[in-house]
């Protein structure tokens, strides 16, 4: 059964991706209609995928609670919050109902922004401790970063107009060279990996050899 499903998966992979790829280059109404349907089916499957994390969390944390493992009380809190949001969303029928908005603004917004913004403090201590001009490369990085910081914040212009201008030179240079090269690299890399997956050379996305 596993071999049959592997073969079906490979056929699906090749056929579906070819339909969508060829549709980009060949304006054929039948092909366009088929590609649109396949595209929209992927959207539906993507919707189902949103719940995968919940299933995984539920099984893992339930086990923790039942076996009273270390810090199981945090698992209780996690699952209780999860069910609170699910219940509120389904009962009110919307994620923008007053009740849902209230619990979201009360809990998720402050926690999420606090967690995400915490990096600023870690970057600050790293700037002091680790960001040293030990060689030419790190010195260049440092100089570019300082001038770009002075370009980003209005204080640079206030100290002296030349500072953000030098920052702009670094910014324009980085944009036209390094950033552009990275984008080209991403494009070529994605094409290469995509082709490898389509022709069956790359098996890891479907779980490798089983």
């Amino acid at each position, binding site marked *: 059964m596993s071999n049959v499903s592997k073969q079906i998966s490979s056929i699906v992979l090749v056929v579906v991706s070819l339909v969508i790829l060829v549709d*980009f280059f060949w304006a054929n109404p039948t092909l*366009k209609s088929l*590609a*649109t*349907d396949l*595209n*929209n089916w*992927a*959207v*539906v499957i*993507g*919707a189902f*995928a*949103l719940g995968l994390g919940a299933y995984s969390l539920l099984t893992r944390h339930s086990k923790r609670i039942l076996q009273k493992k270390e810090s199981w009380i945090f698992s209780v809190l996690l699952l209780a919050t999860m069910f609170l949001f699910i219940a509120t969303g389904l009962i009110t029928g919307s*994620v*923008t109902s007053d009740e*849902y*908005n209230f619990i*979201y603004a009360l809990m*998720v*917004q402050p*926690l*999420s*922004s606090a*967690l*995400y*913004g915490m990096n*600023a*403090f870690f*970057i*600050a*201590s790293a*700037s*002091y*401790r680790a*960001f*040293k*001009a*030990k060689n030419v490369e790190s010195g260049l990085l*440092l100089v570019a*970063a*300082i001038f770009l*910081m*002075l370009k*980003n*914040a*209005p*204080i*640079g*212009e*206030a100290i002296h107009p030349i500072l*953000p201008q030098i920052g702009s030179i670094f*910014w*324009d240079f980085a*944009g*036209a060279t390094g*950033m*552009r090269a*990275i*984008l080209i690299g991403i494009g070529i890399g994605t094409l290469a990996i995509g082709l490898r997956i389509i022709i069956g050379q790359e098996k890891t996305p479907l779980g490798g050899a089983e």
Partner: protein
Amino acid sequence: MSDFIETLSKNYKQVIYIGLFLVLTIPRVYPLGLPIPLSDTTMGVYNQIEALEPGDVVVIGSSISASIYAEVYPQYIAVMRHVLGQEGVKVILVDHIPEAPIFTERAIEEANAYSYKAYGEELVHLGYIAGDEAAISGLCRDLHDLLQVDYHGTSISEISMLDDINSAEDFTIVLDFTASADSQYWLNQAYATYGTKIALGLTAVKVTDAYAYYTAGQIFGIVESTKGAAQYEILIDQPGLAAQGMDAQSLAHLFFIGLILVGNILYFVKGGKNQ
């Protein structure tokens, strides 16, 4: 005194954290009032929206979540206010992550959208569509085939403004506010296939990737993080949280530069050894 210095250098992290906290708090009490220079990328967005004509269709995509709220939401609402003020322009709001509809509806309320545009006639919120790039591709191919209902559950066929809007060919411009890959998806699906004009409102980290698209002429503007939001608030003459926060940004940037310089000076004074 030497004990004090030793304690400080042992606990340098906490000293830095307290310093950063103070530096971010001081401008609230003593605002600096520094002028905010305008950048070309923000002006690009502003000018394109100013040039919109009645009948044009603007799609505003959002991937705003609680984690990037402080950085992207001020841009979103400033630009939305500007677009809503353009007479006769039709606005389609769409979301690309599960959390985004909450902020879209919040922005609609804050911007008083319904006083500018009647829902269903010049404004529609399509809600969150799962599927990442496939969702955006589906919108660009055939909106009516992908969606049955809008965010409020109204059948798409009953929304009059969408009668002659079928695909990205009918979109005049797309504005996407995000920290995620959907900026790339809009470029891949709308710009690459239909040549739709695109501008992005991004977090600072994503701006470095997007700038190469801007210089290549593939996007017509970028609203860059809070700085861009502050600039836009000034352009539309409605200064808000972003403009207020730029003083704290200025002091904090100086603080970071100070940390880097002090760290390096101490490093070289100690003969190139880490303390």
